[in-house]
């Protein structure tokens, strides 16, 4: 019973994708027609009707007849079974041999790798056609023998593809982690590598099918395989070509069928690869932010009071302005808010810091502003304005133009942003040229200038290096240079220093400050590190469980925090904690989206909680000049202390 439901689910998933469904249906029909030819074909393959030789399509012969008056449709159907069997033999042999070998040598490397790769070179240099002819001569025109040879000859190519994909996946940390867990090579390959490269293997298998189809047809066409009068697609092509000057017709259905089959295989391979990739990579970087004001989020948004953004004008010449932004995502449990009612402004030449625990929505805020929200997530309420323009209705094209130029992004992982295949010079020139029409020489000059701007000594040398040849700190400088290529007006830096050494972290922060002073760029700095916030930011926004809970000038926030969460977050700094005692922490964890309490999101973990905290949503208030906080006690305490 459960099998049926799984089958139905897979079927539904497949049918929703025309790029899989259409070729799959075509191939399925071909298979049914071929293997069911005995029952389904209108005529036996050899039955000749001399009165109707070389006829076009008619009611009697839907695909016409050949020069002996045999029914083309019937012969195609009878010939199909052999064709598909041939393809299957060759490709199965290739896969069965090449995939395990490729996986093992890709993971293990070592002497076996060297030997097999050299063997592969040798095999690939064998002239395949000659070998095929010899085999066909030796084995009395056995197509099976020929297909085994083709299958084996394709092993090296497939093995190389699998090996290099395995090498890439094998570098992932989780593969190392699995090995440390005690998994042997084979298990690692099956559990961790194979699922990741199945799509690639499918695409290549589809190509191998097409290759085999063409070779098999070729062998049959020159009469070395299936012996006429037995029907085969290749033989029928050869047949049709003999009578081309009398009638072109017989070549059309045969050639067409081969072409359609080949195309269907390729499209199916591609479609399956994409479907497999989507299963686990939930996000797509290209997805534009969409806004659906009318429908609204599932949570009762109306109950949430509009935020008091009276402090916003404190940022002069705003470059970006988020007003009451709520990001909603579709999850298995329905629509869920990831951030709620976030307002912030970054003025020209200013730096605003977003700080808070992991999972509080800092990155989501940055991504909303960049139009890079993951698939299924969207700005459901509020507005994002960049340079005074509401970007809510922007499509992918407009976003791309904006992202390259006005807004730029530096991420935590500099290496991810830099393609390892190209030199730094190439990467920078590319970045420069997407924004400005420049000659190669001008682009190089500009690239050099950018490297100088990010204070890389000896830029000429660095331009020639590849990302793998530079240190992490240098890579972060380069990725900042790439971000600066479009002369952005606002830069979003999401944990730009987290992956770096302490000694380098400081330099990068200082670099960003210097660039900002020189260019007047606005900077949104996302970090969990108070040291970075202190060093870089004019204004600090503290986020908790999707909301801004405190905001103000960085000095004030760090020296006189008002919100209980800010206070505890500041105290949890290992630098300040006494050795030998537990470092102060905030017990519990951030409630995930969808499980936020009705009242204060921090209530579960707050030692100062009172009854009022959990009854209704808490509004942002502005109890003092420099103070914005989302806490029922904020105003009262302030009154007490002043």
């Amino acid at each position, binding site marked *: 019973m459960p099998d049926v439901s799984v089958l139905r689910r897979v079927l539904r998933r497949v049918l929703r994708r025309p790029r899989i469904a259409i070729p799959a249906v075509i191939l399925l029909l071909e298979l049914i027609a071929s293997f069911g030819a005995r029952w389904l074909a209108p005529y036996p393959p050899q039955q000749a009707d001399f009165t109707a030789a070389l006829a076009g399509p008619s009611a009697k012969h839907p695909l016409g007849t050949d020069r002996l008056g045999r029914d083309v449709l019937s012969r195609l159907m009878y010939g199909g079974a052999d064709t598909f069997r041939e393809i299957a033999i060759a490709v199965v042999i290739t896969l069965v041999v090449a995939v395990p070998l490729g996986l093992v040598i890709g993971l293990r490397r070592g002497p076996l790798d060297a030997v097999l790769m050299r063997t592969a070179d040798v095999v690939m240099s064998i002239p395949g056609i000659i070998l095929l002819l010899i085999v066909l001569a030796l084995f009395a025109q056995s197509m099976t023998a020929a297909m085994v040879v083709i299958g084996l000859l394709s092993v090296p190519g497939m093995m190389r593809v699998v090996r290099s994909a395995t090498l890439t996946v094998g570098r*992932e*940390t*989780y593969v*190392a*982690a*699995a*090995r*440390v*867990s*005690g*998994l*042997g090579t084979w*298990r690692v390959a099956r*559990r*961790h590598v194979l*699922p*990741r490269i199945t799509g690639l293997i499918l695409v290549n298998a589809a190509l191998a099918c097409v290759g085999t189809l063409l070779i098999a047809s070729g062998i049959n066409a020159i009469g070395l395989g299936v012996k006429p009068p037995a029907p085969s697609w290749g033989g029928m092509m050869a047949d049709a070509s003999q009578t081309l000057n009398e009638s072109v017709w017989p070549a059309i259905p045969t050639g067409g069928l081969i072409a359609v089959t080949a195309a269907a295989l390729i499209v199916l391979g591609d479609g399956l690869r994409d479907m497999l990739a989507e*299963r*686990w*990579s*939930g*996000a797509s970087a290209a997805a534009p932010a969409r806004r659906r004001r009318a429908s609204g989020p599932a949570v009762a948004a109306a109950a949430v009071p509009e935020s008091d953004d009276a402090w916003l004008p404190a940022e002069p010449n705003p470059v970006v302005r988020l007003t009451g932004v709520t990001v909603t995502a579709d999850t298995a449990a329905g629509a869920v808010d990831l951030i709620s009612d976030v307002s912030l402004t970054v003025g020209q030449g200013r730096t605003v810091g977003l700080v*808070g*625990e*992991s*999972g509080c929505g800092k*990155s989501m805020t940055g991504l909303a502003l960049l139009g890079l929200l993951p698939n299924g997530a969207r700005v459901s309420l509020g507005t994002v304005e960049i340079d005074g323009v509401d970007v809510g209705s922007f499509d992918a094209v407009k976003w791309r133009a904006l992202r390259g130029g006005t807004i730029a992004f530096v991420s*935590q*992982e500099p290496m991810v942003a830099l393609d390892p295949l190209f030199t730094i010079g190439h990467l920078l020139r590319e970045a420069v040229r997407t924004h400005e029409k420049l000659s190669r020489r001008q682009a190089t000059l500009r690239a050099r200038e950018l490297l100088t701007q990010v204070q890389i000594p000896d830029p000429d040398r660095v331009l020639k290096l590849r990302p793998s040849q530079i*240190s*992490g*700190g240098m890579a972060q400088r380069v990725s900042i240079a790439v971000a600066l290529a479009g002369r952005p007006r606002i830069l979003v830096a999401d944990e730009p220093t*987290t*992956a*770096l*050494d*302490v*000694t*380098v972290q*400081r330099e990068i922060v200082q670099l960003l400050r210097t660039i900002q002073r020189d260019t007047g760029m606005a900077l949104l700095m996302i970090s*969990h*590190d*108070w*040291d970075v916030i202190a060093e870089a930011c004019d204004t600090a926004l503290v986020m908790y469980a999707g909301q801004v809970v405190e905001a103000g000038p960085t000095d004030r926030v760090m020296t006189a925090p008002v919100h209980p969460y800010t206070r*505890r*977050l500041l105290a*949890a*700094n*290992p*630098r300040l*904690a006494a*050795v*030998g005692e*537990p*470092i*102060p*922490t*905030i017990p*519990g*964890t951030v409630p995930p989206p969808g499980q936020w309490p009705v009242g204060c999101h921090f209530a579960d973990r707050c030692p100062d909680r009172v009854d009022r905290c959990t009854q209704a949503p808490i509004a942002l208030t502005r109890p003092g000049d420099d103070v914005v906080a989302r806490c029922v006690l904020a105003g009262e305490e302030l009154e007490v202390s002043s």
Partner: protein
Amino acid sequence: MTTTDATDTTDTTDATGRPLLDVRGLSVSYHRRGKGTPAIRDVSLDIRPGETVALVGESGSGKSTLGRAVLGLTPATRGTILFDGQDVTHAAGARRRELSKSVQAVFQDPNGSLNPALTVGQTLAEPLLVHSRDERSVVLERIREVLALVGLPGEAAGRYPRQFSGGQRQRIAIARALVMSPRLIVCDEPVSALDLSVQAQVLNLFTTLQRETGVSYLFISHDLAVVRHLAQRIVVLYRGDVVEKGTTEEVYADARHPYTRRLLAAAGIEGAPAPSAR
């Protein structure tokens, strides 16, 4: 006393007996047949049961290489690695698998250290599948236990890594290391990608786990501010060489090598009074 003598192998061993991990004169070279400059040169260090030794250095200094060699992920070019008195330098196959019950790892990169195609539960069950034939209910119970240890709800087991934030993923990675109750955990920058409150929680968690289970840590980090909360001894690597070695107090009070002093300054604890030993 701190020493700048890289070849020093006369580390004091515990009075109770031999060290849990004993690395002697280890060199690792990534180039074939040992050509080119090795990533680490002639490194010796030992870790006693229940002890934490910090391996400190800048990126590219060879810290991770040493960690990977101990874990058997990178072959040693020269030298020996003894675990519990056994030579495990070239352990492979069944021996390596056996060893993996006792030696586990937590890596830095919380994004890459979990297979995106497996649920958290599947990832956590992995070591159990390899090492024991426990029933499903036992496995599930253990998974819930380790998730609780790292402060995550049990229902996290059914979700995929992409549904967690960076900090949450790192806790999952730590949970995976804890599943087999190992005797040594190689922690390669385990908290440097975490935010402070979680960093504090995780550091406390490491301390608590050590007190309760007697596990030892090889704690690789570039941040001396973090290290001093955990480590009894510190080894400083600089460009593949051990340049400083000593108890935590010694290194903090009397760093000899300029690089160590630079690290201390970056950690904001220059001239700070030596922390007392635990």
